[in-house]
């Protein structure tokens, strides 16, 4: 089937706008911050308020499914095929977002939208070490 995509930058912008609408709906209607690590943590550990978090997380998976189904966008393959690295990176990401109270969505989208200095600092930190990690990795692999 012929797919109807525009180029990848337009898709990134469109997807970003949709994410912005999603975060806006959650704060404007439910009064909640669309911070995915916080929602996940709350869904597992909080005593109450699990329903909306569970529904959001179900939507997060179903929405991705609907996207590939409706647009015919090909399913991406993993860049890194190393289960040990998956364990290590997963542990670090989980521990880090819990200690730093947020991730790309909570600090990067909602926090910056609130003009929170805390979230701006957090975003600079994780963008910085993300860039550093990829740069060092490609240096080690003989790239650059």
């Amino acid at each position, binding site marked *: 089937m012929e797919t109807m995509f525009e180029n*990848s930058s337009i898709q*990134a912008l469109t*997807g*970003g*706008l*949709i994410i*912005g*609408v*999603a*975060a806006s*709906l*959650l*704060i*404007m*209607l*439910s009064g*909640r911050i669309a911070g*995915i690590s916080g929602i*996940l*943590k709350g869904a597992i550990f909080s005593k109450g308020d699990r329903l909306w978090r569970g*529904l*959001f997380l179900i*939507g*997060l*998976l179903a*929405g*991705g*499914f*609907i*996207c*590939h189904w409706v647009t015919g*966008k090909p*399913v*991406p393959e*993993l*860049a890194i095929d190393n289960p040990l*690295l*998956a364990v*290590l*990176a*997963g*542990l670090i*990401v989980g*521990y*880090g977002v*819990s200690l*730093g*109270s947020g*991730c790309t969505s909570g600090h990067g*989208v*909602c926090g910056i939208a609130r003009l929170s*200095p*805390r979230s701006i600092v957090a975003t600079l930190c*994780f*963008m910085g*070490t*993300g*860039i550093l*990690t990829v740069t060092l990795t490609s240096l080690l692999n003989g790239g*650059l």
Partner: protein
Amino acid sequence: MKHDLAALLAGLLFGFGLAYSGMTDTHKVLGFLDIFGDWDYDLAFVMGGALLVSLFSFRLMKNRQLSLLDCPLNMPTNKQIDSKLIAGSCLFGLGWGLFGYCPGPALTSLIYLEPETLVFVFSMVLGISLHRFMHSGYFQTK
């Protein structure tokens, strides 16, 4: 009830946006973080596009006490820029750059049924739990 359905709708849109934008593609994410190498700038448009909308809506809600469905607004109150925020965020970036997943896209990518994605998500939940238990004093000796 209505606000629970709003959360479902927000989740659906969020997941759609993550998949459509390329955030669930770890090749794109690692390419985006590789600014000194063969930089793929596309994903800058994701945060740009999201902020274009969210800056506006958060401004609208700024001085309100209740949401449009009369729920209390749960705006974060912590304003402290401390070592926990900085160390945690720096660690998160390290893990992000190692594999290419941040929490949202990792969860959405579960639908691709890759075993390694499941391993990543499981480890991520373990990492969150580890921090939570340490924080609550579970592992601390008196």
